[in-house]
């Protein structure tokens, strides 16, 4: 019998198969899986694919220079982790460090050189044309002016790059201006020492007391993880932190003692503390007797501080006399660190406040003792270098060409201050920043440079590091073609001298360290340090550094040289007694308030903010940006404002519109407004001109813009 398939059999087979398949889990599973296609994306992000690599580097976003472990996929850094056991950062990375790689794709990044045309409009030009233009302006500036007519504002002074700047400027009779950083005030202490002084650092970890004048001690000042160490509550060895600040900052909240000081009266408090140290004989009598040059005699320090009686000081600062005495006694009970803080937005304390604060360190014999101010050994340098000065010390109208380095972080400066230093008719600003920066709205020419994760540079030495160190920010992302290293720009313009490349400079320093033979090198992949002597050749050290290693110097004994408690600068010395003439906040006039701009430690002063942080800060209101003004309910009530009201803050230079936020911890008569990127506009640093509190200051002195007289008016909508 033959086997034949009839139509009927075939249909039966197909039908039966269909029923059987329908009863199996297959169709259900299939239908479940197609569910994934029913989602309605209009744009679907593509995840990075490719080989996974792990590399070590250092963070270039701030001087802390934390050690980073970077995981890359297909050449893209997809995650950042801390390096456990790292000598300075001990495994920590801050929020900004975690997100900092996003700067490379920040919406406000400048993607081509731009120039301001005659019409005032900014337009893109080729790099070649930009360099030619820079060359022209350089020639003009040199021919038209004398010393200091060409200047570089260096946002990260102290690197080998800074040395290259100074070498180049030396050939042009230019000046190197140090950008504001959290470690800037330590230089004030150096000027108080008689004779050449070494690099100084603060030994916070071993201090018994930390006397912080508004420094973000618990928010990431100095090496990574220092704040966490200080905060650890089980640690009985940790220093006692006294925070002297007007604002309920995170450090103020977390400090052992928060002295809520009246705005701008830090000098008075410092001298008041000195008064108690001197009058109660709590100072280091041996050192003072041997080294102090200006304690006694007419116009001497003793005479000065005698006028700052606890009663007087209490009246002006708003801190009661008993507390002042308590703090002074605590301070004198062991090694202490004094930090006259630099606020990323509010700027530094006045020169006299810094002097008065550091005089306490000198009185206490803390300079040169463990747990106080320590000296770092120097690596020899060669070549002729231009002067390095602070912006406040630059004569008004003297700069004809200002080149602004593109380093990240730093602190914001008032627009008006920067403008004043420029020659009114010919002053030009050339920015090498990869971003629009609030203080540089009016940069005449922008040649965008690389962002921190794209270029090789030297990581910073944190303020609280007792010894020198060298770590590299090894690039973990490819720099885009439109960006250029700042030294390359200079070498393209330079005609009379050759500017070394950044790699040559770094290699040179590495070789000099190797030649010195001191210290040890930390290997991040192993988590341990080996003595430098184990590195046979200078190439071995270089390779270790390029692999994310960190060289740290050995510490050296340091004997405090003779010093002047009131500093060497006569102008500053004269200003010290004037601090007493300040009116107290109780004498405030109706509707007169003071504006205190400030910056968030993790939202770079005048740079942008990674969009993810902008989003999170906006959602949680953990950081209120410049659209908000914090004020105490009492003052708000007197001025007729309630929570959420819109207000206009006016100074002689302009006004900003803000939303009122009430906080009972804020000092009466003060309005705090943050400086920095907007959390609204993807973290853009400068969404529009005239909306930043730093466009407002109008101060007596160039070196301080912390306290600005202002009026707060209702906004009629």
């Amino acid at each position, binding site marked *: 019998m033959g086997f034949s398939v009839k139509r009927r059999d075939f249909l039966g087979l197909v039908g039966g198969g269909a029923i059987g398949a329908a009863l199996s889990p297959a169709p259900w599973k299939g239908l*479940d899986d197609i*569910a994934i296609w*029913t*989602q309605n994306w209009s744009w679907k992000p593509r995840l990075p694919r490719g080989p996974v690599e792990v590399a070590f580097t250092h963070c270039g976003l701030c001087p802390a220079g934390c050690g980073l472990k970077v995981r890359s996929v297909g050449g893209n850094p997809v995650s950042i982790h801390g390096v456990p056991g790292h000598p300075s950062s001990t495994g920590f990375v801050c929020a900004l460090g975690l997100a900092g790689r996003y700067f490379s794709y920040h919406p406000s990044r400048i993607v081509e050189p731009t120039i301001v045309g005659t019409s005032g409009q900014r337009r893109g030009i080729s790099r070649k044309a930009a360099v030619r233009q820079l060359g022209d302006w350089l020639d003009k500036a040199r021919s038209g002016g004398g010393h200091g007519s060409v200047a570089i504002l260096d946002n990260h002074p102290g690197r080998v790059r800074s040395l290259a700047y100074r070498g180049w400027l030396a050939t042009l009779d230019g000046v190197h201006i140090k950008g504001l950083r959290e470690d800037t005030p330590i230089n004030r202490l150096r000027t108080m020492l008689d004779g050449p002084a070494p690099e100084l650092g603060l030994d916070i970890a071993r201090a018994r007391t930390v006397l912080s004048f508004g420094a973000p001690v618990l928010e990431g000042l100095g090496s990574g993880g220092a704040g966490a160490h200080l905060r650890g509550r089980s640690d009985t060895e940790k220093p006692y932190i006294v925070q002297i600040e007007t604002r309920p900052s995170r450090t103020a909240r977390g400090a052992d003692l928060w002295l809520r000081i009246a705005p701008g009266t830090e000098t008075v408090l410092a001298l008041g503390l000195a008064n108690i140290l001197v009058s109660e004989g709590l100072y280091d009598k041996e050192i003072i007797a041997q080294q102090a040059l200006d304690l006694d005699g007419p116009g001497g320090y003793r005479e000065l501080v005698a006028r700052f009686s606890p009663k007087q000081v209490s009246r002006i600062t708003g801190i009661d006399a008993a507390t002042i005495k308590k703090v002074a006694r605590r301070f004198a009970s062991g090694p202490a660190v004094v930090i006259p803080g630099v606020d990323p937005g509010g700027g530094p304390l006045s020169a006299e406040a810094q002097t008065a604060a550091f005089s306490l360190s000198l009185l206490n014999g803390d300079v040169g003792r463990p747990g106080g101010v320590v000296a770092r050994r120097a690596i020899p340098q060669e070549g002729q270098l231009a002067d390095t000065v602070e912006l406040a010390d630059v004569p008004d109208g003297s700069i004809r060409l200002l080149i602004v380095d593109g380093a990240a972080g730093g602190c914001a400066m008032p627009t008006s201050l920067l403008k004043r230093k420029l020659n009114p008719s010919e002053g030009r600003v050339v920015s090498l920043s990869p971003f629009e920066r609030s203080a540089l709205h009016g940069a005449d020419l922008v040649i965008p440079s690389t962002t921190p994760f794209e270029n090789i540079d030297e990581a910073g030495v944190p303020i609280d590091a007792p010894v020198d160190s060298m770590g590299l920010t090894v690039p973990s992302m490819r720099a885009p073609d439109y960006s250029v290293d700042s030294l390359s720009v200079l070498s393209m313009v330079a005609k009379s001298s050759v500017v070394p490349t950044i790699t040559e400079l770094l290699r040179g320093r590495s070789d000099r360290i190797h030649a010195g033979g001191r210290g040890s090198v930390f290997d991040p992949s192993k988590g341990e340090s080996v003595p430098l002597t184990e590195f046979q050749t200078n190439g071995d050290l270089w390779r270790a550094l390029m692999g994310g290693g960190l060289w740290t110097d050995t510490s050296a004994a340091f004997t405090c040289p003779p010093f002047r408690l009131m500093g060497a600068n006569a102008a500053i010395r004269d200003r010290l007694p004037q601090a007493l003439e300040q009116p107290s906040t109780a004498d405030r006039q109706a509707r007169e308030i003071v504006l205190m701009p400030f910056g968030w430690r993790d939202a770079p002063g005048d740079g942008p903010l990674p969009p993810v942080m902008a989003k999170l800060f906006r959602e949680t209101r953990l950081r209120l940006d410049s659209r908000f003004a914090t004020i105490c309910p009492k003052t708000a009530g007197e001025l007729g404002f309630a929570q959420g009201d819109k207000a206009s803050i006016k100074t002689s230079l302009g006004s900003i519109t803000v939303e009122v936020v009430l906080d009972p911890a804020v000092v009466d008569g003060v309005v705090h407004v943050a400086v920095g990127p907007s959390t609204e506009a993807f973290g853009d640093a400068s969404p529009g001109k005239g909306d930043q509190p730093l466009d407002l200051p109008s101060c007596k002195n160039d070196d301080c813009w912390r306290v600005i007289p202002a009026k707060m008016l209702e906004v009629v909508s």
Partner: protein
Amino acid sequence: MIEPLDNRAPTRVFLPWIGFWMAIFALGAYCTVLCLSQGLFHTNMNNRFGFGIWIFLDLTVIALGAGAFFSAFLLYILKKQALKDVIGAAVVLGFICYSGAVVVLAIDVGQPLRAWFTFWHPNAHSMLAEVTFCLTLYLLVLAIEYVPLILKNPSLSKNVSLLVFEGQLHKVVVVFAGVGAILSFFHQGSLGGLYGVMNGRPFAFREHFFIWPSTFFLFILSAIAAGPSFLILINKLASKISKKQLVRKEAYDFLGRISGWLLLAYVGLKSVDTIVWINHTAPASGYSASEFFKEASFGTWILFAEIILFGLLPALVLINNRLRKNPLVMIVAPLLVCIGIAINRYVMTLQSQSLPTLPFEEFVLYTPSLVEIGVFGGMLSYGVIVFSLSYRYLPLFPGLQQKAKT
């Protein structure tokens, strides 16, 4: 070609009327397209307000649409012949309310293409799954009940097959009335259950009877109390606009009476529920009722308005035989009833979200965006258009037809 019933709105009146509503509908359609194609950021909802005006609207509309199932239940199962006049309109209203609610729900969810997952991966414990199942099935029932009405259009009734179909449907309408009553009962209840089961939201959470929270029953009761009132309102409105006596007075009277008594029962139970909630349920969760009403936007006034002003008052009016004779009262009282139910749905939807549960979260207010209002308008106009078309082309009101024949 389907022709209008000859004694209904003339074309010159009808066209501008429909045109106006079509324009609003087009606007709503545009807003819908925005939401579906770009995302729900066009709304003003946020992570604290996951349910916005649309959910409030859906709940209100479904409560008011309860007239459909309740009338069908009374007419076909309990044989209350007085409702014969309004059953057509009730079915159309119900259909409009439910289909509109389903469409708005589809716009409201972020991934409407996945709405069928509820049938695919149902969570038997979820009140929303129950709502979805009931709503879908009941919408089917309403559509089936709507079909005979459509087939009664003279143009259509010339077709023998359709005529036969209509006749056959009419015979089984009692089955659908019964099934519809069960479904409606459950989903009105599960809509209330949506809130009552939220053990993490002390403002909404209520005591349970077996597996159902008290809101389950309160929502059913309030819906069947409000449904008849809404029927009165709509029929009166239609009469006013068409300038014709559409429904006999006896029907209005019956609806008013039943609405009044049910509302009275509801207000009583709601009061008991509120007292238990204030004194037992909320304190057991760590919240005192005073916290719920401390913000001015949702002060105790809203509780008073919901239960007394728009609850007890119209209930007492409607159960009074003498007052019901007054035509003005028969407009105002049902209106109060409907507003009261809307307030209840509003409070459950929005106040429960405005109030933070975490003590350090803020009190948040929500105002709908223009797009949300646009979609709302679209749904409203959809209802007016369907009702107008039904009125013009279908013998919605048997009373009116009789009058024309004699």
